[in-house]
């Protein structure tokens, strides 16, 4: 058939095929939108119902009261202070260890079977159920090292839990820096450490921070490993303050103090017979969600700040 004879008739199969593919394409777009919509609706419904249920209890007193057998008297003071202190300890250990390990694996480690083995292990560790970390911590920190049921044990446990996340995200962040930059630094006579410290780290810092904070927001909601190491349920006093009026002004005694955290307090309230405690649980849930969202928001802001500062 000559090209001149191309008619609407002869092209119609092609037209059909094209329009069928376009139909599939646009219907997938709609399907995707629908799926996102459903997921968001579920989340929104969950948060809304939690807020509606918990709202009557969300007042200043709720934040400044200890747990109590009277639901109206009960508050989350011990729980949120515990959560903050445990997070602080977690950060103290997870950040230096995780970032340093990430840098070594990405920038220094020779590419051999040992590095591959470590890499596989780190990735697998990220998928280990948290209760397993709890059991490890119970045996190692709590009993072997005799750290007891303390903030320090909890912080170390959660640090261990999020270490793989921090390592993996650090490596991803470093890998995203173009190699040109490394070569340029070497060309000017920088040592490997100078190259990393002065160029690679500042540029990737935003992404590394995001990984750290995502790890932290996972840790803040963890319950199972902390129950395993013996986090308490009723505790009506606060750990000693880190800043003291007398010399040496700084005290680390809080690290050894017994503690509870937000998710455990919530869990305890949910299992109570009295309906009023369900309101407390919902209110604590709202606070926990706000804490997590704040952490995430902070991560997004920091990423934005640091990306703006990157000039290459």
């Amino acid at each position, binding site marked *: 058939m000559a090209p001149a004879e191309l008619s609407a008739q002869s092209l119609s199969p092609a037209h059909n095929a094209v329009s069928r593919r376009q139909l599939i394409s646009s219907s997938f777009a709609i399907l995707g939108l629908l799926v996102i919509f459903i997921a968001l609706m579920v989340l929104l419904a969950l948060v809304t119902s939690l807020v509606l249920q918990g709202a009557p209890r969300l007042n200043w007193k709720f934040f400044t009261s200890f747990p109590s*057998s009277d639901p109206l008297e009960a508050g989350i003071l011990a729980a949120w202070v515990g959560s903050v202190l445990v997070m602080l300890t977690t950060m103290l250990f997870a950040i230096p260890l995780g970032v340093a390990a990430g840098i070594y694996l990405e920038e220094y480690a020779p590419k051999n079977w040992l590095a591959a083995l470590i890499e596989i292990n780190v990735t697998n560790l990220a998928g280990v159920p948290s209760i397993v970390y709890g059991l490890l911590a119970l045996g190692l920190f709590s009993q072997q090292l005799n750290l007891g049921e303390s903030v320090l044990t909890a912080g170390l446990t959660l640090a261990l839990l999020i270490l793989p996340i921090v390592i993996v995200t650090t490596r991803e962040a470093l890998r995203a820096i173009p190699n040109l930059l490394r070569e340029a630094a070497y060309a000017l006579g920088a040592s490997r450490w100078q190259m990393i*410290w002065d160029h690679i780290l500042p540029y990737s810092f935003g992404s590394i921070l995001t990984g750290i904070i995502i790890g932290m927001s996972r840790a803040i909601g963890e319950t199972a490993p902390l129950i395993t190491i013996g986090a308490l349920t*009723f505790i*009506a006093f606060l750990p000693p303050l880190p800043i003291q009026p007398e010399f040496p002004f700084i005290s680390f*005694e809080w*690290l050894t*103090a017994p503690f509870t955290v937000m998710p455990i307090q919530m869990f305890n309230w949910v299992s*109570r*017979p*009295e309906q009023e405690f369900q309101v407390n649980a919902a209110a604590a849930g709202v606070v926990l969600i706000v804490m997590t969202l704040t952490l995430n928001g902070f991560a997004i802001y920091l990423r934005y700040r640091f990306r703006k500062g990157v000039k290459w």
Partner: protein
Amino acid sequence: MVVNQVKLVPSRFTALLSATAATVAVVGLSISAVNSQSSVIKIDGSSTVYPITEKVAEGFQKTGSAKVTVGISGTGGGFKKFCAGELDISNASRPILKKEMAACAAKGVRYIELPVAYDAITVVTNKGNTWAKNLTTAELKKIWEPASTVKNWKDVRSGFPNQPLRLFGPGADSGTFDYFTEAINGKAKSVRKDFTASEDDNVLVQGVSRDKGALGYFGMAYYEANKGRINEVSVNGVSPSVQTVQSGAYTPLSRPLFIYVNAESAKKPEVNKFIQYYMKNGGAAASAVKYVALPARAYPVAMTRFNKKKTGTIFGGEEAVGLKIDELLTRELKE
């Protein structure tokens, strides 16, 4: 040039190093300081006993005498820590078992057994259930025994309507489950497999309130908090109440709850004070959290046992069903 470089780099490097050093110092300090909290009374154990002890601890702490912490590890988990010498007091919803006695003996931990309240296990049905107001223990056994084939209410007793039977009960980690199966089926943990089990009693309440043919059981506090949604069932013609439990008429489904005090800790003044406070206020605390208090005369007797530091258990490591309060306090203690 070279000198310049070397000087520049360490300034940041030292910052990093000192951060690491600080971290190490923190660990060192805390390890040395770990065993320095002696003024805290450490309590752990049963989740059933927890509300009572929490109530007492709350009141005690307001007197400003000492700090108290209460955990929930379950009766078994509590005894594990208790016998390792980690606790001052263990909450227990059942008497100490033989293997736990051996563990305590191995570590040289001696204990004072104090009953603090009753928990009445309440059998419940759906609000729409108009027929089963009373069940005998024989009928309960017929329903719950391991070989049971009862799947319909009409098979429980002739005259009951044709309504499928749906069963709800606590899971195997629960002390309530152990006691109920022992009391009804004659052997702890022996039960039919086809029932909905949950460690969360609120889930059981939900389940029973939604199914017309449902039958379930759990602690009295959960029935009291949900009276409007479910019916209670009398057992052998006796309905669970403070009177019937205290008099011993509601048998075999009422069980005593205990605290076990480490005899070594009992020498500490703050623990001693706490137990005195517990024995004075434990009854009121139990009633406040919807448990059944022991008869008023029981607490002074228990206090005397504590004051005389009489160690051991009256049970000798066996589960006992349907024991009267006077037996709890007068039977001979064994170690």
